[in-house]
């Protein structure tokens, strides 16, 4: 369960405040996979960052008894000078894994992400697809109540996409996802409920199909 109470978040532009959430009070119920839709710049990624605890509302509160993964996305989350391996070590350590566990995490991430020799190259040499493969591969090795995924399921070739979806389906037997995607088939397949972010408000729909319908109306 995630509770938002009077949450306001804006960005200050040169002339005005651009509201992403304008005094939103809202509860995301437990036990459902949530798809998040919205136009570019509507604030989907910011919403994910706030739910993940690394960005903060200008006023109001977000609270949840659950644990969240880091936001897995195409951008950010990696220090360019670190190699893929070093990054996996780093994340394992901050989650308190023992050196022995870290070895097995490294092996599984290396195998899943299909980075090959790039696994020992600095992340600044990676393409954005490679970054999300690494990020997604890592998240599979940790236990969270919610996985926060920002568009990463549509990277890589067909083969890798299939593999990711399969891994994710297995993963969500034990946890739930908050998924931002522009791909309607992926949303339909993975999510139960939907939230449309539009004009500073959240529109909640009990069925993901309704959320997609709402989103299509906004775009019309």
């Amino acid at each position: 369960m995630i509770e938002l109470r009077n949450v306001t978040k804006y960005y200050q532009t040169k002339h005005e405040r651009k509201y992403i959430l304008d005094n939103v009070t809202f509860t995301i119920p437990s036990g459902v996979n949530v798809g998040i839709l919205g136009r570019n710049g509507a604030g989907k990624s910011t919403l994910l960052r706030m739910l993940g605890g690394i960005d903060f509302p200008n006023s109001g509160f977000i609270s949840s008894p659950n644990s969240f993964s880091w936001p897995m996305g195409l951008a950010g989350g990696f220090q360019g000078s670190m190699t893929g391996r070093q990054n996996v070590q780093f994340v394992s350590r901050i989650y308190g894994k023992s050196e022995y566990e870290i070895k097995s995490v490294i092996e599984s991430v290396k195998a899943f992400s299909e980075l090959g020799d790039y696994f020992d190259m600095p992340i600044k040499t990676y393409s954005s697809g490679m970054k999300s493969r690494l990020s997604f591969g890592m998240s599979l090795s940790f236990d969270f109540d919610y996985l926060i995924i920002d568009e990463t399921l549509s990277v890589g070739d067909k083969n890798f996409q299939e593999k990711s979806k399969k891994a994710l389906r297995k993963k969500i037997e034990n946890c739930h996802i908050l998924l931002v995607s522009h791909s309607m088939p992926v949303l339909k397949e993975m999510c139960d409920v939907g939230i449309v972010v539009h004009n500073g408000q959240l529109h909640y729909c009990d069925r993901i199909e309704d959320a997609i319908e709402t989103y299509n109306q906004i775009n019309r």
Partner: protein
Amino acid sequence: MVRRSSFSIFKSVITALFLREVQTRFGTKKLGYFWAIFDAMLMVLVFAGLKAAIAENAMPGVDFPVFLASGFLAFFLWKDIVNRSIDAFGANSALFAYKQVKPFDTLVTRVLLEILVSTMATLVFIVIGLYFEFDIAPQNFNMVILAVLWLVVFGFGVGLMSAVFAHFYETFGKIVKVVMTPLIFISAIMYTVDSLPPVLRELILYNPLVHFMEMIHGYYFAALDTKYVDYEYMLYWTLIPLYIGLYFYVKGERRILST
């Protein structure tokens, strides 16, 4: 998922950040080890050479290279803590994507790393000192260590304050870094306060680093004393920047995280 106490998270994060900093500092550039001692070594050679060229031993009972080495090692420890603190947020900002990692942790990590680097440099100096048969045994080991640890806390306070200010006003960080170079000459590193004319003496004692250097030198060498050291003044300079730094850090943490 098992809930961990905030202290155990803090420990894991510091460990992870520390090992990452060691990797980037010494792993990718093999010269990292070299630079760690090069600064201090160069200064000792230059000033010991100058001194030998212009004057006979003006400090009886003191091996001048040892005097220089102790001062420069301490000064560079302090300087590096402050300088590296200023860059700490920027250099680790991508890692703030993991909510366990707080900007404060990156400062603590860098202080610990500088202590490690300085310790290694000191060991190298000790080996060289033994080889050339300098008198390197400190007169009061415990008080020297206390002075150095106090200097570390002083550096941490100034570093924290500068890091927070520099995050919001970039110029501040640049000014601090520019000030570091002249500080070398006005911090009683290569001379004692006692050797200065009275007018200069009064002026230079406003510089808190002078008190730390005098404390280190005074307890290291039996021939020198600590009569110019004002402990109260040192305490103010330790606590006030630390307080200001913490105050603005707590107020600004979220803004540092979200940029």
